[in-house]
């Protein structure tokens, strides 16, 4: 693992929104506070967090397509260099690609073929698309269809295809299997695994831990705007190998592991506690947890907890 080149290295990433409340009172919503992720070549890393927790903003941040009222902090390193807006513009859709969560991310008024080819009509682009489609068993006619005409099985493969027109070195899959049946999930995931095996780094953003554990090499646990643990997927086989109390709580909540739950909900971004966001729900919480907590290495993974 160590020798492999780091494709993506995100440090202390944060995203906040400016919001106007009741007229002129301006507030800042820190949706993401401390997010750290690394992705190596040929590796599949899953960022797991509950839906609505702002994970998608990570994808948008890497691609440089955050909404205009969002402010980004921290550093994103890609391929050993800082990822500037200029580089983002150059690389996105080519080396850094996004596999979106649904066909709502395709222009409803444009045919699939010309849409994926980005309007290009030259022979090389056509040949390339034909080859990609062939690889996913999509017939040539599909290129002439509009997004709404695709069947459920087809649109997943089409969405993956959209990411492959360039030479992807980093594939970001944002919640690529929302509410799909397990067979379908496995099939979609196998596409990503394939891309990783071919050498690309894959960043899978999902709310579904079970799904992530099945395919990913590493799992990054995301809680209320913060990454609390970075663990090998195999660490999730037992509670003892996990580091953060929240990860352990997740483990215990799996139906096959006892289906236990802890009380409470993830805090609202406006009401985040100081220090560890999990503090109020954590049985080990002490005064120390209310201070800034370092993200440190423990047993080959990383954790943001003073007790681990």
């Amino acid at each position: 693992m160590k020798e492999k080149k780091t494709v993506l290295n995100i440090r202390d990433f944060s995203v906040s929104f400016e919001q106007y409340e009741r007229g002129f009172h301006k507030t800042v919503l820190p949706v993401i506070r401390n997010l750290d992720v690394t992705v190596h070549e040929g590796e599949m890393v899953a960022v797991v967090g509950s839906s609505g927790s702002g994970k998608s903003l990570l994808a948008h941040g890497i691609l440089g397509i955050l909404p205009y009222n969002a402010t980004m902090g921290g550093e994103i390193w890609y391929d050993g260099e800082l990822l500037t807006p200029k580089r983002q513009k150059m690389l996105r859709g080519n080396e850094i690609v996004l596999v979106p969560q649904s066909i709502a991310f395709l222009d409803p008024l444009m045919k699939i073929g010309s849409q994926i080819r980005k309007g290009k009509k030259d022979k090389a682009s056509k040949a390339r698309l034909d080859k990609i489609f062939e690889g996913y068993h999509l017939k040539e006619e599909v290129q002439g269809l509009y997004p709404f005409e695709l069947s459920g099985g087809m649109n997943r493969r089409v969405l993956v295809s959209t990411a492959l027109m360039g030479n992807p070195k980093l594939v970001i899959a944002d919640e690529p299997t929302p509410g799909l049946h397990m067979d379908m999930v496995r099939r979609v995931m196998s596409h990503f695994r394939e891309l990783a095996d071919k050498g690309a780094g894959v960043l899978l953003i999902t709310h579904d831990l079970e799904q992530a554990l099945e395919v990913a090499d590493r799992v990054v646990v995301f809680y209320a705007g913060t990454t609390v643990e970075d663990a090998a997927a195999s660490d999730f086989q037992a509670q003892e190998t996990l580091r953060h109390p929240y990860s352990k709580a997740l483990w215990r909540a799996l139906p096959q592991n006892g289906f236990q739950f802890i009380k409470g909900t993830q805090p609202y971004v406006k009401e985040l506690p100081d220090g560890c966001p999990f503090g109020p729900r954590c049985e080990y919480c002490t005064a120390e947890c209310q201070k800034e907590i370092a993200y440190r290495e423990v047993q080959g993974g990383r954790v943001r907890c003073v007790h681990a």
Partner: protein
Amino acid sequence: MVLEAKEISFRYGKESRQILNDFSLQIESHERVGIVAPSGFGKTTFCKILAGYEMPDQGEVLLDGKPLDTYRGYCPVQMIWQHPEQVVNPRLRMREVLKEGDEIGEDIIEGLGIEEDWKKRFPAEISGGEMQRFCIARALGKRTKFLLADEISTMLDLITQSQLWSFLIEEVERREIGLLAVSHSMPLLERVCTRICYLEKS
């Protein structure tokens, strides 16, 4: 009570595919039935038919032997959906959303961990997990006799999933509400249900 689906066939429009074909199922009040089926089987459609949102092309839905559509007013069969944000009026505060259902006991609000502060908010201001709690509460009105849960925790994190299901199991047991749970997760259904139906594509 017994909720009975009798030889139900259904498809959307004349040109589309047959979704359900002669499908029958029976649920009793003390039961929690799980359904496992491949994608495209029409599980959601089946739930919609059982809850009276769609009329089957053939067959009928009987509640205690009487067709469901003869029950006037509040429908005793209530459905909880996979995507709560799609079944909540975005322009109503959550407090008003709750009032859309039947009378809801304070114990339900408490049991689901719904906080007073959330009720003041609009749907866009709360998370999916919080919204699903409201949707579950809304479906658990006093006159609810059967509950249909269509992948209700698929979009939620594991802890919320286990919180909500633990509450639901206790509540339906106490009130003798029959439950139909649709999920792709076998371990979950094994935890939740008293009986599981495995279905093949027709």
